[in-house]
């Protein structure tokens, strides 16, 4: 994405959207730069696949750009964008086999370089293995549980935001999140869980 103009960096999303609708590509690039990593990381956990997440993130930004004029600003831009990506992910999941685990090689290829903590190679390998275990556990959740877990733990959404994105009552968010955590607890060994 083109390097966004610095003068646009501080603008609110609504201004950027308005500028982009008016034909200012740079404004949209700012929005992309602002949200691409967040959206992508969420999609990685949601889909369990780095490549799929990249494709869907890209499709979502393109779709959002096409439909930008229809964005009414009743929700935050990112919420709207996320919903587009979410729908794409669900459509994609329906046309694929359900098992698309993030394999170890893919994970290690694309994982951000961990800070140098002086850990031994063996310990790093264990850490990677743990990450894989957690991702596998997420993948094994039912869609409705995985979505909520990702929105809460990866996206950091509060319950109201999750309810808006998934279009379910807050009470449903609460109960599904609890069930998802219970299932994750059962799937993850005590050693995998953080203290």
């Amino acid at each position, binding site marked *: 994405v083109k390097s966004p103009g610095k003068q646009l960096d501080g603008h609110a999303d609504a201004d950027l959207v308005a500028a982009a609708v008016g034909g200012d590509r740079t404004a949209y690039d700012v929005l992309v730069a602002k949200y691409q990593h967040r959206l992508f*990381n969420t999609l990685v956990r949601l889909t369990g696949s780095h490549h799929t997440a990249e494709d869907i993130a*890209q499709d979502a930004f393109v779709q959002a750009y096409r439909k930008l004029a229809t964005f009414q600003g*009743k*929700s935050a831009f990112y919420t709207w964008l996320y919903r587009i990506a979410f729908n*794409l992910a669900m459509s994609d999941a329906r046309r694929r*086999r359900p098992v698309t685990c993030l394999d170890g090689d893919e994970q290690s290829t694309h994982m951000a370089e961990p800070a140098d903590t002086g850990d031994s190679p063996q310990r790093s390998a264990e850490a990677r293995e743990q990450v894989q275990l957690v991702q596998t556990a997420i993948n094994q959740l039912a869609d409705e549980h995985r979505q909520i877990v990702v929105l809460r733990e990866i996206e950091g959404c509060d319950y109201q935001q999750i309810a808006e994105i998934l279009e379910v009552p807050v009470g449903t968010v*609460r109960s599904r999140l609890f069930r998802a955590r219970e299932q994750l607890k059962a799937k993850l060994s005590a050693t995998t869980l953080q*203290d």
Partner: protein
Amino acid sequence: MSSSNLPTRHPELLSAYIDGELTGEELRVVEAWLAEDSDARALADEMRSVSATLQALPPQELSGDWSHQLSTRLDEVAKPHDQATFNVPLGRSSRGWLYSAAAIAAAVAIMFFVPREVDNQVAVNKPAARGGELREEATEDGTDESLNEGSRIPELRGEVASDSEPEADTALADVPSNSASRMAPPEPAVPRPEAAVSSLAGRAEMADAFAEGEEANTDNFFIVWADVPPAALRDQQINLVLARNGIRLEEDSESAAATVASAPVEAAEDLATPPAAEPMLEQIAVRNYVHNVESNTLAEGGARGGFGGGGGGRNTGAAVRSRRGATAGSTNSGSAGPESGEAPALEGETILVEATAEQIASCLVDMEQDATTYRTITLEPVQQLEQLKQLADKVDESQLRELAKEDYGLWRFYQQQGIADRDQRGAKVASARALETRQGYADELSQSSGQSNQAFANQMAGQSVAQAQRLKRPEQWYFYNAPPQSEQNAYRLRAAEPESKSKGAVVRGANEMKQQLAQLKVQRQQPVGAARASITAEDLPDRTPLQVLFVLRSTDLAASNSAPQP
């Protein structure tokens, strides 16, 4: 440690507590609970641990060329329209839909002019359309090999669906396409790989028109409305259309339907809908809502006056109800055939189908050719929800305040309107969804377990991209919900017209249909095994799955609109 020891019926409160999502009384209750119960503290700690583990997952990095690729794509989109290839903008505007409707109309017309061999070959392209032949009879023109190809049920022979696709495509590329090219819809902006194949025949053209929706829409949702005689509902003749086109009807949903149909009162959980159906039902609901408010039927006492049947009388609901008694009209029972004695009058049935564009188009062709069963056929794209909502916004809220006394309604509707406050909701809750059944939707809203999503999860786990599922609708739903009346919102594949077949032809057709249904019933009782597993997404890399809601309404509904109240 088990949560069963906890002295509470709401263990999820602990989960919400660690997220800081509790206030007021709930917060006090949980704090007191944690203070006195070590099990509760342990469970809360475990929840925190799970949460921390997930939050500690390392961030992933985008590939180096991702941004460049996106930028290139955005540049393409940003090109002025006159530089871009003309695109059928299905889903972007009502005008766009009209273009697409014209494309479908052209496609339907083409279907009756293209050489049958072309259809035949195109049908080979349909992944699920293989296996045993079910329908032996030719259609009116006597050369209906193509439909035979499309009418095969994959399970009958259990053939693997993925064979020789490249060969099929190659063969198609050699087929002349004169008539198709004359009437072809505008080229899509970005030709899809199968576009050359699809443009060769009407059936595939229609599929193309459907698939085109994906270019412009996030969701590929369509509603197919049809008026069918009560006998066809009872016999579930739509099963044949689906099966002929390789669409498997889920056994589970069928058996559940049978249970419900025999129950005197439908339970709230029976109304749960899979999420895949929600966009369609939502569109119907909001459209219905707008219509009712605009025609003042809401103001005169709520959900009265089915507008689809032509009359819209306010007493007709009672007439339908009295004829149907207390039986849920939501769906058919597989055992409720004509032989089973006094079958309940059925309002209609609703079937959620997920299949390729080719299969859906082929289903429509089959319906189109059976005018006896499918008296009217209307296609409605699910793409104008935003417009409908804007329309709903303009409705005088005072009307609604008078009517909305309870907190029921379309959750999404007010969520998307940005209405979070409970009192505000009260003003807007008279949404169309509530018109289906007030209690039903209130119950649905109160469900916290997300049972409705289970069907969808099962669907995904089933690995089949071509399948159908019967959905239960509340009592009188079919009465209150009808196809769009405006041609801007829908395309009429066939409007109601007088039956022109001779009585003999009708009887013969009915007998033939009955025979096929019996075969199908036997077939569906066989274990599926390998045949079902063979229809997988992997076998269909280039197919475009569509979600289509087939809503079949009894022709009796229209008749009942003019019936006197008993």
